[in-house]
Structures are given as C-alpha cells and as structure tokens.
C-alpha cells in the first residue's frame, strides 16, 4: 500500500514538473504556403512584371530589381564612384560628383522617387537624394544613367527628399540637421543651437520636357530635424507635408533629449502660396555657392557649374506658408493617401497611428484654431486636424503606403511586422511578420494617386539567420508579399545591396519599351570623338597627350603608340564604333591610378593616365566583346623625359623590321 501511494505521488510530481517546462509556447513557425513558389517564379526567358528601384543607402547607388523574381538587374551609380563603370573616374563623369566642397566620391543615397504625371507614375525619371552632402539626383529611365545632380545651399543632411508633387512640378529637399544658414557665421558654439541653427526646405523645379532641375525657392524654417515628406494629391495638391522631430531642439544625446516631448509636428507647407510670394518678390536673394552638374547623352560628358544665388522665403515673416500639426512622438513617416484627404503620421516611439484630415486641417486654419506657435509658426489644435487614431497597431511605426482600395499598410520596426488597416474604420485587418525589423515598405505606386497593389516589399534592417551566413557583415534582407487578396502572403525572401531606405516600383511595360539599345554615332558631339578609324590620331601639346582612339570588334585603333615621355599626362579618348545591341568595350592600361572605362556603342569616354615610369605599358579591352576579345590589346611605349623618340601611332603597320620587309 505504502509503495503504491509512494509511486503515485512520485509520478504525479514528475508529471507536474514536466508540464511546467513545456508551458513555454512554441515558435509560431515561419510557414510559407506551397503556392508561394509559383507566384514568385519568373521562368527562364520570361520578364519580371515590375521594375523595383531601391535606394542603396550607404552604397550611394540606386539598385534596379525585377519583381516578382527579386533578381538584381542593374546597380546605377549615382553618388558613389564606381570604378567598374568608370563613374567618377572618367574625365566625362568626374564633374557629376563636383560640389562646393570639391569632388565628393561617396554619399548616402537615401530615398528614391519616380516622376509622376497627374499623380500617376510616368516612367520618365527616378530621383535620389544624397543625405550627407545635400544633393538631389535625376536618373533617366531610357538610359538608366544619372543625368543631373544639384547641390543644396543652406543645408546639412537631406532626409525628407526627393519627394515630388503630383505632376513633378517640384522635387523637395529638407534638412535633417539644422545648421546656421550659409550667409551667417557658422563658427558659433554648438550649444547656441536654439539661437543660431535653422532648418531649410528646398523646392527644386523640374523642367517639364527635359527634367532640368533648378532651385526655385527655399523656405527657412525653425531649427528642427525634418524627417520624411510627401506631397498632397488631388484636393490637397498645392500642399506638402513634412514630419519633424527634435522639436526639443537638442544638440547633444538626441537619443534621450529628442525623445522627451510627447508630441512633435507634421509641418504643412502651402507651396502654392509660397509661389505667390515668390512672384511678388517677397523672397530674399541670398549669395551662396552650390554646384549644378548635368550630363549630356549627346556630348557624352558632364558640365559642372557653381551657382551663386538662391531665393529664400522666411516662414516666420510670411505668415501663411507653414503650419504645424502636433504629432506623437518623434514622427518618421508622413504619408498621404491616394485620395489626398488623409495624412498618416508614424511616430517612432508612439503606440498609436494618428490620421489627419486635410479638410479638417484647412477648416482649422481658416478658423484660426491654433494653440500657440513654435518659433513664429502657428500650431493647429491636435484634435481639430485629427481624423482619428489607430489604437495599439504594433510597436515602433515607421512608414505607411496604400493600396488604393481604402487600406493602409504600416511598417513596425520594433515588433518586426507589417500591419494592414482600413483608413475609414481605423481598424487593423491583417498583420504579417517580417524578418527582421522592417524599416520601409514599397507598394508599386503606393505613394501615388493610383497604387498598383499586387505586391508589397518589406525592406528590413536586421538579417541574422535569414540567408547563408557571410561572416559578421550581412546583406540587408527584403521580403515580397502578395497583397492582391484580403490577407498578405509571403512569397519571396531576397537580399539587397547597400541598405534600402525607400523604394519605388512600376509596371515594367512603362519603361521596357523605351529602353535605349545603343547611342547613334552620328549624334555623338563629344569634343574628342572619332567617328571612324580615319579620324584617330595622337596629338601632343606640351606634356599633355590626347589619344583619339576607336574600338570595334576586335581591335583598338591605334594599338601601337610610341613617343610618350615620362611625366606626360595622357588622355585616352575612346569611341566605341559599334552600332549594335549589347556590344560594349572596356579599356584598361597597366598601372592606371584611375580605373577602367566601359564604353557603350556610339559613346566616347576619356581615361586620364600619367606616364610615371619609362617602359612598356599594355592596354586591353576588359569587357568580353567577341570571339577574339583576348586579342583586343595594344602597347604604349614610354621613353625618358628628354628623349627624341618620335610620336608614332598605328594599327597593323608597326611590324618588326625583318617582318616588315617580307610584308612588302
């Protein structure tokens, strides 16, 4: 009897203890449905449905992916030099990276935005912003090349950029870091922030036909940090919205000091009104220095101009351009829904999502429903501009895009998920985890008037175990979701270059038909072009030597060059004479401390090479162009400085003495 009760007791105790251990909930599991593969697969020989333009962040470049395959199609060099393509190394592209600080070889391409007409993506250009040395770039989508870069005066950091108005009238820039303006003394104590530091918003006009950028005006604003921005659409066209944080105006330990206030702001800018003031001459002309660089596909070269004047409107003085709407709490995203009525703020540290109403905002402004002002700018009463709040959606909201069906999708960094919610009802409808800690999301056309809500791509900040490990440094991860149904479905997981902070996507049909196959040689207006082998030559001017060279399968002309002296600055101007699809040639010469050239058919590019040593220097084509690519080479002879070796250049003529006799 004793033994059995004893045994029962023991078993009972053990059972209780074991069940305690198992009460730890199991991981929900990363279940991907079986039809995900079909949805993400693009068969060999078939095309992706969408072009996905993804900012490279600290890589400085713009990546082009295909969706739904997630295949990397091209990395477009924009703000960082690219020795592979000669971007920033060839004489023709170096001026593109010129600034008022001189040549800047790297920047942080933070966000990207496709040009729009009538609020729809039109596939003409894509813009990118430089977050370090403030600039905006325009990339042409027929050549997928950076055509223009404009620098911004009075600015430091450029985060709330390059967002556009619905007809690409303007592309904006906004300072992430407030600094003393360019015409004031910048040599002030850092803790005089509140007195001396100002924020600046730039409105860059974009030429309707050619896309040429020009700073139409700047607005001087209070010294806060501008984070993200979006233009009004439809009924709210004419307004622009910027999220602001650090209204505490801290200059140190912002981690703590800029997180103190319960609410920061969304700044509403009436730019149509600003235009009126500009016309009425109310802007102040300020002397500044900033670079404006333009690349021409006709001359295949860039020109850099330093501009010396900008017009600034004062938001304090011109009372009805800027208004503040209180927004919890250190807002990041500032997103306008496709109807233009709702403005969604995402407060990084907030536990809710505030949704503002454009109609209510304009009514509040008309009725002067203000609760005070911040540095001269009126603050609208929160409840008067608010449509409603989405309660407890997740932790750490960052960024919102829309599907055009009345729903919004917001990323949550801390709880690592994307949440779908209905705008009218302010109710959460669906949530999916992301792997891990999503920063930004992209829906094709998701920030335009007409979203194409087939896909959603989440761009994450933490990768960890998502892919095969590659040492301590890992590529950033992205997930592709099918959002054509009621629930979001994960279909693909792919790594990205650099660090995406924003992305745009558009139907491939809009761009693929316009893609240029090659440059027409007769239109080539480069000053050093050789339109045929008969135009090639080598010309010496003092110690500068210009080599006018051509390349065609499979030889360079000239490919034997003699008479170069040590200390000479040699410029290789190479024209690719091919007039066919996908026949580029490359050019490299031994010991070059520049890079290589990759020359497209019909194009001319120049590489500078200094003759540092006496000797023999081979050059060759670096891009596998033909069956006899390996034979595409040449030699350059460098003689001592005072030598009297004559200048010689030829192809197929300079045979050895014995040979040349037999060749006769």
């Amino acid at each position: 009897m004793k033994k059995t009760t004893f045994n029962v007791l023991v078993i009972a105790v053990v059972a209780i203890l074991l069940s305690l251990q198992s009460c730890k909930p199991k991981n929900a599991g990363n279940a991907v449905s079986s039809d995900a593969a079909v949805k993400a697969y693009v068969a060999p020989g078939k095309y992706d449905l969408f072009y996905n333009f993804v900012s490279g962040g600290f890589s400085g470049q713009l990546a082009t992916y295909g969706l739904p395959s997630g295949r990397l199609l091209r990395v477009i060099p924009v703000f960082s030099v690219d020795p592979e393509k000669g971007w920033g190394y060839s004489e023709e592209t170096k001026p593109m990276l010129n600034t008022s600080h001189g040549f800047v070889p790297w920047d942080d391409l933070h966000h990207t935005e496709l040009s729009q007409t009538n609020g729809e993506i039109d596939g003409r250009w894509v813009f990118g912003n430089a977050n370090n040395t403030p600039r905006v770039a325009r990339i042409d989508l027929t050549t997928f090349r950076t055509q223009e870069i404009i620098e911004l005066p009075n600015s430091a950091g450029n985060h709330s950029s390059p967002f556009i108005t619905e007809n690409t009238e303007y592309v904006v820039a906004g300072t992430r870091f407030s600094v003393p303006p360019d015409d004031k003394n910048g040599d002030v104590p850092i803790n005089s922030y509140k007195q001396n530091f100002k924020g600046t918003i730039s409105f860059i006009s974009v030429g309707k036909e050619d896309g040429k950028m020009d700073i139409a005006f700047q607005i001087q604003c209070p010294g806060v940090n501008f984070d993200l921005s979006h233009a009004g659409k439809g009924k709210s066209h004419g307004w622009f919205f910027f999220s602001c944080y650090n209204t505490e105006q801290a200059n140190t330990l912002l981690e703590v000091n800029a997180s103190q206030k319960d609410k920061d702001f969304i700044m509403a800018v009436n730019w149509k009104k600003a235009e009126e003031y500009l016309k009425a001459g109310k802007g102040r002309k300020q002397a500044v220095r900033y670079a404006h660089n333009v690349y021409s596909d006709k001359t295949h070269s860039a020109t850099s101009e330093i501009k010396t004047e900008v017009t600034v409107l004062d938001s304090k003085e011109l009372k009805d351009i800027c208004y503040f709407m209180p927004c919890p709490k250190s807002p990041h995203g500032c997103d306008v829904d496709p109807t233009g009525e709702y403005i969604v703020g995402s407060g990084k540290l907030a536990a809710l999502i505030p949704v503002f109403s454009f109609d209510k905002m304009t009514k509040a402004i008309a009725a002067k429903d203000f609760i005070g002002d911040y540095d001269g700018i009126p603050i609208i009463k929160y409840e008067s501009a608010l449509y409603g709040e989405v309660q407890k959606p997740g932790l750490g909201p960052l960024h919102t895009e829309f599907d055009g069906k009345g729903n919004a999708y917001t990323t949550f960094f801390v709880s690592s998920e994307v949440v779908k919610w209905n705008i009218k009802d302010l109710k959460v409808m669906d949530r999916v985890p992301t792997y891990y800690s999503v920063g930004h999301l992209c829906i094709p056309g998701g920030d335009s008037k007409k979203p194409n809500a087939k896909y959603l791509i989440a761009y994450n900040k933490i990768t960890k175990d998502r892919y095969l490990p590659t040492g301590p440094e890992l590529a950033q991860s992205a997930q592709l979701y099918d959002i054509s149904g009621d629930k979001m479905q994960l279909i693909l997981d792919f790594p990205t270059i650099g660090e995406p902070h924003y992305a745009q996507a558009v139907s491939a049909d809009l761009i693929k038909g316009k893609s240029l196959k090659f440059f027409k040689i007769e239109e080539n207006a480069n000053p050093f072009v050789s339109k045929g082998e008969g135009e090639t030559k080598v010309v010496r001017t003092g110690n500068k030597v210009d080599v006018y060279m051509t390349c065609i399968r499979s030889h360079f002309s000239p490919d034997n060059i003699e008479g170069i002296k040590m200390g000479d600055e040699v410029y290789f101007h190479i024209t690719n004479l091919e007039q066919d699809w996908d026949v580029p040639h490359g050019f490299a010469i031994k010991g070059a401390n520049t890079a290589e050239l990759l020359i497209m058919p019909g194009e001319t590019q120049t590489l500078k090479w200094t003759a540092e040593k006496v000797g023999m220097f081979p050059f060759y084509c670096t891009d596998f162009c033909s069956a006899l690519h390996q034979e595409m080479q040449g030699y350059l002879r460098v003689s001592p400085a005072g030598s009297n070796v004559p200048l010689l250049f030829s192809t197929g003529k300079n045979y050895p003495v014995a040979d040349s006799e037999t060749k006769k």
Partner: protein
Amino acid sequence: MQKKTLQKWVRLVLVLCAAGLVLVLFVPMWRIDLAAPQYPEGLMLLIYPNNIGGNVDIINGLNHYIGMKTLHTADFMEFTVLPYIIAVFAALFVITAIAGKRKLLNSLFILFVGFGILAMYDFWRWEFNYGHNLNPDAAIIVPGMAYQPPLIGYKQLLNFGAYSMPDIGGWIFIGVGVLLFLCVIATWRNSKKIR
C-alpha cells in the same frame, strides 16, 4: 527508540539530496528566456548561485532604451551568501542522515522549505524593483508600463516574451524538496505503524 530513528532508504535519499545540493553550486538555478521577432537566436539570463550569466551584456544594452537599471553580479549581495547557504544545507542533510533522528529530519524540512519561500520572495522583490524604478529620461516611455519580469511563467513585455522558469539547479532544489517531503511523510507513517 526505533520510532525515533530513520529507515535505511531514507538516510540514503538524504545523502543523495546532499550530493544534489553540491551539484547546484555549479549549475544555473534559474533562467529567464527572452524571445522577440528580431532575435531568432533567442536571449537568456542565467542565475547561478554566485553570479548572473547568459546574454547579460546584450540584455543590459536593450534595457537602456526603457530606462531599466543594468544588471551586475556585484549589485546583489545574495550572490555572496547563497553558495554558503547551499553548502550548509548539504552538510545538514549529511548530518541528518548520519544522526538518523526524526526531529532533525522534520526541522530540516521546515528550514529548507522556509528558505525556498524566502528565496522566491527575494527574487520577486528584485524583479519588482528593476521593473518599476525606471529612468525618467529613458528614450522609450510607454505610459503606465512597467517591465517587471514574471516570477515564474510567461509575460509579454513590449516586443519581448519573457519566460521565467527554474534551470537545472532549480529543478534539483525542487526535487530535493519533494524527496525531503516524501521522507518526512514516510518516516511519519512508519512511526505511526510501529506502535
């Protein structure tokens, strides 16, 4: 006299318990596992008799966002006395086994259970302290939110799921307590039988 002495198997169990307690000195007693979506590898806090182990540094790094004090072994005097208390208990178990007196067994049982309850209360008190006394300058302040980890079981704290449960040492402790209880019961029933 026979009633007052312990049975052979009881004495054996007591010595086994003593051995178990010695083992407790070298293994973790308690663990708090933290799970969050961005930590697929998981995080854990291990509490040994003489120090805190596991991913203490990473957890301290995360805690600074919410203003929780950082955890350091030196801040808790418990870690200096606990090893001695456990060693003393091990010795007491052996002494009881050798002496074989019923009174000693019962006193040991009361002492052991009493210590267990005191230890859990102390643990709860520290958890309350750390979870509630937050730095007012913290970057992330969720109104009304406190971060007291669970005493035992599961609790969601922002994006982290915290699971507090005994580790090997803790299970041994519980096991010893149960065995001790069974010894007491068996000895009491035995004494009742032999009349």
